[in-house]
């Protein structure tokens, strides 16, 4: 027994040193936003098929992505909530957008199909404030005179983790409602007045699917892949718009991403006629000093910029405009990682 354990300890030490030296760095590890998880994992999968290189992306929420890259526990972090240039400077980070998408309200009301329910900023805010508590509320009815709305209590589903999707959503609510701004505010995690919390876009989608008469918000790809009932929303131009590739693209067109500010920009409540009002870019964060791994990460995203547009479109993410891609490449060049 003693001999055995001695051998065990020896082989343990041997394996430890072996694995420390032999395998380091065959895989890129990223973590963060669940918003772009469907597209990053599809990109990673195809990239792996094409090049043999592995990109391990774990969807843990944007807050997690920021935390883990600040602690340098991953090769790159991902966040839908951009960090402002000061914060990036302080943490010694680089930042660039990767893809654009939209956050959509999703509901679970038996009998109501996707794209049928109309909401405006006021009703949406008041539902999430817990002021509208039933689906047959006068305000909701007024927007949807033709729908049969049940007299059932609304269950609000929000995120439990630090989330860029939440940041985009609450930034939007803060812009359209003073009451929201004062009572709750905007951030990756906020003090929700009502509701239950799901972990990640995945968790919110799952809870909305399982809890009847609920409402939540998820990135559109989650709504689409899981056939959730998304709603229409009244945008800044007072049009009811449907979440779609076109309406996200319209919102993206209004954005002016500035490399001088590390592309810091929110795309919510865009003025365009057909803009989806809760759109956003999702960002990649790199540790400035980790040149070696940054080169690999950048190589991956350069590949995705060149070859990933079709995959992104299929999942209803909007690829970045070519001009923006070029300005990101210049940003990389300036850092000596491209």
């Amino acid at each position, binding site marked *: 027994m003693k001999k055995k354990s001695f051998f065990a300890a020896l082989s343990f030490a041997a394996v430890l040193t072996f694995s420390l030296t032999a395998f380091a760095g065959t895989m890129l590890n990223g973590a963060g936003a669940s918003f772009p998880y469907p597209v990053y994992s599809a990109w990673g999968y195809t990239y792996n098929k094409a090049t043999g290189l592995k990109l391990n992306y774990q969807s843990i929420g944007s807050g997690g992505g920021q935390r883990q890259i600040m602690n340098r526990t991953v090769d790159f972090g991902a966040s839908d909530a951009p960090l402002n240039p000061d914060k990036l400077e302080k943490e010694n980070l680089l930042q660039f957008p990767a893809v654009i998408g939209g956050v959509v309200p999703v509901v679970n009301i038996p009998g109501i199909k996707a794209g049928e329910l109309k909401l405006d900023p006021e009703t949406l805010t008041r539902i999430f404030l817990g002021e509208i508590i039933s689906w047959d509320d006068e305000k909701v009815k007024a927007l949807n005179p033709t729908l049969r709305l049940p007299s059932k209590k609304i*269950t609000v589903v929000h995120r439990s983790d630090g989330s860029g999707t939440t940041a985009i959503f609450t930034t939007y609510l803060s812009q359209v409602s003073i009451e929201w701004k004062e009572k709750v505010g*905007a951030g990756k995690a*906020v003090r929700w007045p009502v*509701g*239950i*919390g799901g972990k990640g876009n995945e968790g919110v989608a799952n809870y909305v699917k399982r809890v009847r008469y609920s409402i939540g918000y998820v990135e559109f790809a989650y709504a689409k892949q899981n056939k959730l009932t998304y709603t229409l929303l009244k945008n800044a131009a007072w049009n009811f718009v449907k979440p779609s590739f076109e309406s996200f693209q319209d919102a993206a067109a209004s954005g002016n991403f500035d490399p001088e500010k590390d592309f810091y920009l929110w795309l919510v409540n865009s003025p365009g006629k057909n803009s989806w009002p809760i759109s956003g870019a999702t960002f990649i964060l790199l540790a400035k000093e980790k040149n070696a791994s940054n080169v690999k990460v950048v190589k991956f995203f350069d590949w995705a910029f060149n070859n990933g547009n079709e995959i992104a479109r299929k999942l209803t993410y909007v690829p970045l405009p070519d001009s923006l891609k070029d300005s990101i490449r210049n940003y990389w060049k300036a850092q000596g990682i491209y």
Partner: protein
Amino acid sequence: MPVLFKKNAGDRIFSLVTAVSSLSVLALIAGILWVLLAESSPAIEKFGFFRFITSTDWNPVTESFGAATNLFGTAVTTVLSLLIAVPVAIGIAIFITEVAPHYLKGPIGVAIELLAAIPSIIYGMWGLFTLVPIMSHYVEPALQNTIGKLPFIGILFKGTPMGIDLLTASVILSIMIIPFTASIARDAFNLTPAVMKESAYALGATKWEAIKNIVFSYSKLGVFGGIVLSLGRALGETMAIAFVLGNNHRITSSLLDAAATITVTLANEFTEADTDIYLSSLFYLALILFVLSFITLAIAKLFLLKAERRYSR
């Protein structure tokens, strides 16, 4: 005794290696305490102790954190699950030791132990997919239509029966603790000398009277220790309830509302916390949980030791 052996080089080395190994347990406990203290010190400095445990604020935007909502969730799920589990567990123990025919004792005992071996994540997943719909469609509406109509108690069952709430979490937790409590209670009951029970029967006692008056009084220390031990277990359980608790940082009056426990908050927010004070507050929660369960488990151990000493006399 051990002192008798001759000291030689081999023994010196081997005894040293074994001593270090066994001391690793103490080192680990001290290490955990020290590391958690160190990691949570920014939060301790910022929020203090009483303010931290009484504040219901859990607000990452303003970076203001308090443990009260988490402590509330932990307390409610723990107490409620024990209220459900303990009577059932004691019933099972009575059945195995006193009621069951001999050929059933083994199989039922094994079944209970298997129930205890199922990992908590299985309970959690089963809870979300199987128990939640049952609770939200049948059990909770039924409760609302019966006890929910009573004054005072009714408050506990207000709200939407969505199944993702304190009640469902407590039910799952209780199913998890039942086998654990039952096997300790069974072991305690088994230690009652047969002679004492027989003398009770000789005096004309019914079986229940013998159990109530002889077995219970003989084993109460052990059973009580077992209950406290289960309490310690329930305090720290994470995965079984992480699926169905709903992560809601509020203190609610209804059992049909979502809530958060220390463990579930840690599981959901630990890798995601983005600011230092946020992470430090989570470590602070872990520290509180560690100390709470340590004290609970120590008390349980104390009772069990006392019980052991009494029987061995």
